[in-house]
């Protein structure tokens, strides 16, 4: 019996900013290697490789760790900001 990453994230407290995506990516970025970094490293598992080798990504479960920014800002990752005031993840334990 193991929880999927989505089920795991669902126990977290998030204040999702529906209006504004704090991270934007180029899902069709040509270099597969760059995309695999994100698929492997995001601790929220938010980067998924589709069958056609494009990426799907949803900022809603973001833990704001900055990993994808460090790895791929300027390639796959086009914009990376912290969410606006009061928005985003809230660690009750941390």
């Amino acid at each position, binding site marked *: 019996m193991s929880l999927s990453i989505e089920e795991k994230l669902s126990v977290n407290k998030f204040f999702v900013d529906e209006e504004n995506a704090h991270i934007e990516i180029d899902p069709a970025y040509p270099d597969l290697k760059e995309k695999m970094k994100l698929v*492997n490293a995001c*601790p929220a598992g938010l980067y998924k490789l589709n069958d056609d080798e494009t990426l799907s990504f949803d900022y809603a479960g973001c833990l*704001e760790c*900055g990993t994808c920014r460090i790895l791929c800002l300027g390639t796959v990752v086009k914009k990376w900001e912290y969410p606006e*005031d009061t928005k985003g993840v809230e660690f009750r*334990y*941390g």
Partner: protein
Amino acid sequence: MSEEKFDVIVVGGGLAGSTAAYILAEQGLEVLLIERGNYGGSKNMTGGRLYSHSLEKIIPNFAEEAPVERRVVKEAVTMMTENDAVTFNFRSPRLAETGSDSYVVLRGEFDRWLFDKAEEEGAIATSGIKVDELIVENKKVKGVICGGEEMLADVVILADGVNSLLAEKAGLRPRVKPSQVAVGAKEVYELPSKVIEDRFGLEENEGAAWLFAGSPTNGLVGGGFLYTNKQSISIGMVVNLERIGESDKTIEDMMNEFTKHPEVAPLIKDGKLVERSGHVVPEAGLSMVSTLYGDGFLICGDAAGFCLNIGYMVRGMDFAIASGEMAAKAVLKAREKEDFSSATLKIYKDMLDESFVMKDLSLYKKFPSFMDNPRIFNEYPEMLSNIMADMFIVNGNHGIPLRKKAMKHIKSVGLLNLVKDGLRGVKSI
């Protein structure tokens, strides 16, 4: 636009920032502490263990009032292969002596306590507000901009964590490189205190710290960790980002395999997952420390790169607190001189150089390159567990002298490699 000018603006209500704000407010300065999360600690995560010495100096006996989880009396380090585990254990009252003691903490509560302490001392502590930019004129930092509003100060202390977008955007620090950091993933499992105490052989309020190397990180530089809280267990892993793209497993696959390992699964059995978090850990040691001060600003904590990961020990929180303290002291000195230029603020660097912060970072400066060796995460755990298997397994086949058994496994790694890596290891710590 507000024309008010503060003595000091501190960006980031983590341990580094709240410590700096606490000390400055205590000395009567007008301090604005700005945290983007809804409360101090709400964006912060750690493995778990705070070495008390640096905070103890600032707030003696802090553990009596602060929300600490458990005092560590037991250390364990495990080398792991896919199915095996070889563990080294240390238990001693010396681990719990005042000044050498360490506490498992959960940052959501612990940072909030310190942030609120800074406010009690008189700092204007605001949460739920993000600093968007620094105001920089002629290379001098003059204040910050939040939501279009400018706020000015004699000096700005940047304690905004490892990603320090502000320092980077203002050109005060280069962007962090993947090889310099690890990604950390962590899960917190709730369990009754009695169950935790029985499982780990602890008395009430006693805690255990446990690190794991080998199979968890799929051959990449990194490791697993486990810390006991009062009524939950913190478990997770850190994996260096340098080669993460080449891995055939995601960090989530690694977490799943780690938490299901036969040595680990019983430790968190029946625990209810209450949080999954992620954070970046600076781990390049001294080579990562960059700009520390300049005209009108100081950088402390993770933002300055003050963190040590030496395999059996992770230290960042005691560095964050100590560097926050020294940043505050440097500001106090600068105020005496009424000069906030880099020439005066350099005293911060001098204090750091004289303290354990720079001394320990220098001492372990070769460690990150020593760890960048796949044998440590693949061959050595395998070798150890094979030697153990030969020692402990009796199956009716006639015995072979231990020396021969061990040699067989050592040869599979290469005696020369072992000697070489052993020497490098010893030199790096």
